[in-house]
């Protein structure tokens, strides 16, 4: 195994002498000049047949992969490998990555391929040029994971982790962190397995102590591995989750809270709903004050207004003492029901029916009208159509009753949905419907004067 250090050494004697068409000192750069010189040198021919055939070969490979003809793909791959010897240094340097991607795909699916072949290929590719070492190592490890070879994957990651080559570029640093994090994830897996074993053991058992000690070792190593990656902006859900679980297990609540708060609130991180969900769940477990929970969910509400936690959010708001929270509670319910996925959510409808009544009783007609004004154009067609009335009644009569109440309150007695449901005669629901009619008569925001 030997590295081709050409990317770093860059011998000037290569045929890329003309490639840098840069006038020394002026910093001017003429990319077209090189092409021009090439065409002159080759007698007006733009491209050598070598370049032409290899690019044709590449498209044949892609076509074969698309059609799942692994055999043909391997055949063309055999010829395509010669781009590694391309005299055009640009193409030569880009080649290893292409070859790795195509080759690993072929080896993954080819019926004659096996883990050994894949390993041999990965090991060879890692050492063609230094730029791809980490990327390939990581993908190699994922391949091994996919085949259930956890130990090999772990060994692979450890090897990659210790790999260094001169000055690391910034992209490589992220890769090293990622590799460490994956290693951490593997350790987490081992740890949680141990945790399972531990839970089955008796506390007084002599094995308990050694097992728990073992776990502690693991957790320490893991936290080192995971911690570094989590500092870097990005979406690291599985890593964060397992890290927090371990921290919590050992009672480091502050540490866990810090990680989660950072993950959710650091502005450098991309917007990520899961970050807020993790934080909320953690705070809930911690029995944090209601105010705090509300502030977390408020952000989630802005990112994902249809999330199922929103009903929980509504409950929190309802219980709050602040009036603005009560108003927000109504908004949240309306927003949840704006989504097609929630139209049959009976809890949401029940909450809305109940809360509408409560709000109107509290003489906050303006709140309701405010929410309704933007929806009155499309909710009747979206929720309260005749079709929905029929199908809801058929499928779920309780839901239909709740919806009918809301429909009656919001768009009056003339609403088709309300009319259809109120005409129904059913033993169980007779009483409910009667009550519904009464409520509508009382609270409907349409012609409240009548």
């Amino acid at each position, binding site marked *: 195994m030997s590295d*081709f250090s050409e990317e770093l050494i860059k011998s000037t*004697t290569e045929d890329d002498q003309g490639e840098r068409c840069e006038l020394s000192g002026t910093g001017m750069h003429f990319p077209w000049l090189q092409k021009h010189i090439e065409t002159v040198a080759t007698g007006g021919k733009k491209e050598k047949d070598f*370049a032409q055939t290899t690019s044709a070969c590449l498209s044949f490979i892609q076509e074969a992969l698309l059609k799942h003809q692994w055999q043909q793909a391997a055949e063309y791959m055999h010829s395509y490998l010669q781009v590694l*010897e391309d005299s055009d240094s640009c193409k030569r340097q880009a080649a290893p990555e292409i070859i790795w991607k195509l080759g690993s795909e*072929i080896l993954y699916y080819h019926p004659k391929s096996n883990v050994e072949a894949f390993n041999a290929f990965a090991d060879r590719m890692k050492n063609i040029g230094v730029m791809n070492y980490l990327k390939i190592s990581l993908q190699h490890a994922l391949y091994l994971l996919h085949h259930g070879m956890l130990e090999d994957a772990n060994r692979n990651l450890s090897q990659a982790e210790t790999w260094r080559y001169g000055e690391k570029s910034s992209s490589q640093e992220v890769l090293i962190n990622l590799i460490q994090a994956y290693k951490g994830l593997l350790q987490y897996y081992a740890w949680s397995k141990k945790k399972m074993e531990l839970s089955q053991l008796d506390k007084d058992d002599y094995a308990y102590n050694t097992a728990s000690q073992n776990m502690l070792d693991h957790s320490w190593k893991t936290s080192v591995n995971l911690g570094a990656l989590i500092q870097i902006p990005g979406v690291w859900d599985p890593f964060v989750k397992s890290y927090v679980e371990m921290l919590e297990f050992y009672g480091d609540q502050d540490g866990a809270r810090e990680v989660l708060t950072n993950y959710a609130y650091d502005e450098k991180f991309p917007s990520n709903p899961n970050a807020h969900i993790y934080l909320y769940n953690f705070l809930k477990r911690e029995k944090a004050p209601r105010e705090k929970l509300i502030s977390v969910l408020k952000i989630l509400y802005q990112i994902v207004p249809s999330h199922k936690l929103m009903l929980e959010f509504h409950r929190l708001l309802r219980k709050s003492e602040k009036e603005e929270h009560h108003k927000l509670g109504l908004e949240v319910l309306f927003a949840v029901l704006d989504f097609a996925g929630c139209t049959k959510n009976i809890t949401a409808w029940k909450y809305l029916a109940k809360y509408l009544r409560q709000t109107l009783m509290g003489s906050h007609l303006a709140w309701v009208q405010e929410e309704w004004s933007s929806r009155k154009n499309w909710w009747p067609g979206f929720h309260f159509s005749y079709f929905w009335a029929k199908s809801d009644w058929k499928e779920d009569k309780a839901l239909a009753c709740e919806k009918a109440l809301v429909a009656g309150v919001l768009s009056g007695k003339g609403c088709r949905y309300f009319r259809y449901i109120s005409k129904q005669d059913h033993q169980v629901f007779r009483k409910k419907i009667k009550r519904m009619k009464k409520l509508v008569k009382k609270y409907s925001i349409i012609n409240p004067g009548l």
Partner: protein
Amino acid sequence: MDLDEAKEFKERCTQCAAVSWGLTDEGKYYCTSCHNVTERSKEVVNTGAIPNTKIQAINRGLKRKRKLEKGWDWYVCEGFQHILYQQAEALKTLGVGPELKNEVLHNFWKRYLQKSKQAYCKNPVYTSKRKAPVLEDNPSHSDWDSEPELLSDFSCPSFVESGAESQPDVHTQKPFPIIKASQSETASICSGSVDGVEYSLRKEKGIVKMTVPRTLAFCCLALLWQRETITLSDLLRFVEEDHIPYINAFQHFPEEMKLYGRDKGIFAIESWPNYEDIYKKMIEIATFLDLPRFPDITEDCYLHPNMLCLKYLMEVNLPDEMHNLTCQVVKMTGIGEVDFLTFDPIAKMAKTAKYDVQAVAVIVVVLKLLFLLDDNLEWSLSNIAEKYNEKNKEDKPWFDFRKWYQVMKKSLDEKKQKWEETRAKYLWKSEKPLYHSSIDKSVVCKRREMVVNLQKQFSTLVDSTPTIGKKSPSSFQFNWTEEDPDRTCFHGHSLQGVLTKKGQSLTTKNSLYWLSTQKFCRSYCKHVTTYEESNFSLSYQFIINLFSFLLRIKTSFLHEEVSLIEKRLFKTKYSKTKKKSSRSRKCDPWISNDVTRTLVRNTKSQALLPTCHFRTRCGAQKAVIQKALQEFRYSLKCE
């Protein structure tokens, strides 16, 4: 890390049991698979005498440096000579007479060396340029002796005598005074050959420098001189099919001829030869060599258009009867004349016929005469033929253009697909990697090794049945039989459906013709016409595509040749002489005034005329002219 040197060490690694050793900088062996370094070092293994590792390291360093330079002192022209030798050998195995190699090509080459002042002259270029010590009796002066076969017929320079050129005594003159190459090995500019650097810098006016493509021009000239049955397009196709050494020809140089540095630029080739390019080089070389008139191309020669037309008619599955028509066209255009066909480099305008392209162009013209190829008439004629064939199943079938098209289209598409696939699979890189300097030698070698290893891995995934190896060389690319419906043979079909009897002679039913180019470009752009595919009928496009694929040439190139044939055929149309019919009828009955008088211009397509240059317009429009078929008399001799 020199893996070559470490090959001698064959013991198993104590750690991983692999036998794969490399050498560390200190000359110790290390295992390339587990990086375990042994205590044993190279020199100890070899001599067992030197205990001090430091001395070993120095020893080794010196040895290695010398290794780059080891090998014969050889000149660039020797390299080309070797390639020519290989190519001549390959041609011999293809069935070409041995005289080609021993006499013709050899003499051409000697003449080249003389003309370019590299040998056989009083002041070879090497001595005049540099005043280096001439070592007359250098032991490594084995250049000529190393090629005994090529030089075996030294005593018969019959060709050179006719060349009216004073011939210095070859035997007394040392061809190459040896200059001790004093390039420092570490310099980036170096070469394995003695004069590689100098050669690549040499830019003398009036000297045609040897290049790898020019070796093919030499071969083609020799073939033409011998009037062999290989055309230029055949030669280039054989090159592409690897029957004639060209790409990586340097691979087969003797082991002692080391190539690196500037030699790479001279001998490494990454493109297949191109017809137009080699054709130009042929003329260039023949002029440079000042060759006399070539042997006459007469009617019994393979290169005569009549012969080639017959060959290509067979190749593309057209009826044999069409040969009479092609002969007629050849006669009328005068392209069958000896003076037209014979190559004469000394003539004012040195040019040779593109025999194969021309023959194919004649066939295209005949197809246009018979079927018009306007996407209309050929199909209605096919309908007639189809009906006739259904009714008369016993008779000789009439040629059905549609059926022929279907068969050809299918075969052509298959052939093309296969051709593209084999091209994509072509392995360009030689087993002997070429490097620029000693610095990147190890990198290049390692890269080569890596590629070989990876190739090995992927070849295990390929089906165990190896793809059909080298195709045996053949001048035919298609194969037609009566049995297979996909490869129906049309050779025996008759043209009765498209011909009518008129008195004693036969004429074509079709009385129209359109010119591929109406106005020729007379600008300085060198091309005479352009080919914009979409301006032409689909059947014309198909036929042009078919033939240009067969010859591996560009479609525009063939279109141009078709236009040139038409120019000869319809002389009056182009010269625009509107003289009375009686006069012209006398001198040439074919081109009658009727042709010009009844010219019908297709106004619609004229609007589409592409403008080529500010002065002239290259015609791609269809000028439909009515042929005076009463005048178009030809006798079907076989009838």
